[in-house]
């Protein structure tokens, strides 16, 4: 099969090949559009990652709190709820169902709805990891915190969480790469991200192989960059003498 990479240099309206491949003024080429789609994928994923980290940490922590059975139950319920419904169905829930049931949500832009769907879906997984990280610490750490007179908030903030987060950096890395892959599902509600681009432009230009290849490579680059960032954080945050990762959470 002969590949025709000039397809990306074409103007999206006239279909003429533009010199330099980037459109001038108001005109855009398929290459301009590709980068805009990548921008959508990155911004949906990163915003959802922030939501997932914040909510996931809170849920993960309350599942480990001592003497709070109802909070623990709430946390467990949260995880079961978001883990047992397919992401695509959750996207439809946020996009179609909730705005119909809760009228103020009708004014939410689609971007926010998709970010909430993806973020809360991932929060359940991150909550599992945060919980596992806290439980992986020896019980003595908690008691040591109590013994020096810390309040619950203080010993989580200064004793448990700093170590727990270091332990779970490897699974957090793969979850962060997953969020980029999962953001592809946003195509179903017409967010102009990479997968939507692949579907639409693949059809428009009748050059689906080139278009899919470009999109797939951009997904791979995004995942690689995230991976490198986390590797850097892991290196910077390493506590001398404390083996936190390396072979990781696999084991037996």
């Amino acid at each position, binding site marked *: 099969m002969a590949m025709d990479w000039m397809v990306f240099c074409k103007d999206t309206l006239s279909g003429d090949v533009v010199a330099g491949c980037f459109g001038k003024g108001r005109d855009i080429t398929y290459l301009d559009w590709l980068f805009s789609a990548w921008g959508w994928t990155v911004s949906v994923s990163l915003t959802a990652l922030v939501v997932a980290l914040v909510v996931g940490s809170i849920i993960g922590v309350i599942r480990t709190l001592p003497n709070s059975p109802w909070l623990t139950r709430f946390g467990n319920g949260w995880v079961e709820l978001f883990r*047992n419904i*397919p992401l695509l*169905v959750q996207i439809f829930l946020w996009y*179609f169902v909730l705005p119909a049931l809760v009228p103020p949500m009708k004014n939410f832009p689609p971007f926010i709805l998709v970010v909430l769907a993806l973020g809360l879906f991932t929060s359940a997984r991150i909550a599992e990891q945060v919980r596992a990280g806290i439980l992986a610490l020896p019980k003595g750490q908690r008691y040591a915190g109590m013994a020096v007179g810390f309040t619950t908030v203080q010993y989580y903030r200064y004793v448990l969480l700093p170590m727990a987060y270091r332990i779970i950096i490897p699974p957090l890395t793969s979850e962060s790469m997953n969020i980029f*892959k999962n*953001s592809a599902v946003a195509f*179903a509600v017409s967010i102009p991200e990479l997968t939507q681009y*692949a579907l639409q432009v693949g059809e428009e230009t009748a050059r689906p192989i080139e278009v899919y290849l470009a999109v797939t490579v951009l997904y791979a680059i995004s995942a690689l960059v995230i991976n490198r960032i986390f590797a850097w954080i892991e290196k910077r945050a390493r506590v001398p003498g404390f083996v936190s990762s390396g072979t990781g959470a696999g084991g037996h």
Partner: protein
Amino acid sequence: MLNLDFSILNWGLIQGFILKGLWFSILLTAVATAGGIFFGTLLALMRLSGQKWLDAPAALYVNVMRSVPLVMVILWFFLLVPLLIGRPIGAEYSAVVTFIALAAAYFSEIMRAGIQSIPRGQVFAGQAVGMTYGQNMRLVILPQAFRNMLPVLLTQTIILFQDTSLVYAIGAYDLLKGFETAGKNFGRPIETYLMATVTYFVISYSLSSVVKSINRKFAIIR
């Protein structure tokens, strides 16, 4: 507050729209699991063979499949399989091929971990009684690896079942599509999306409860 009307939920709707989709989702999950375990085990054996020419292509295949978004894999297969075999195939058939290929990549990592979890002594014991590589794998290693990894394999199957909803991208008629079509026909999309949510939740949640109890009963006590 919108008025929800669940009166459309009756046997006619289930028979007319849902059962066909539910059947396809279950079939897709089952075929992908069976095919995935078979091809995944072969991939795992390739990766553990210690032969570069077997290990490298298997590793490449698994890593590529795992780093591309699922939806893109589904779209790629829908595009490429007809080109390779030279005639168009339906969305459902394409979905089956895609999910076997996907499941093979995911299950191979699980089987690899399972095989590696077997103590080396077991391999040596098999060799000591004169078993060939094939006999050793089939009679000694794989049964134990499979049993050790059963909970993980089942959990992956539940994830697979949820992922089958992504065949939406190529328009295959699965459980989600069934509810969506019913919603469009009756003009009640909100209600049918809610029904789809409940259906997926009930199936996934009960399966994961089963996995938890298997986890307690089947674990090999060492």
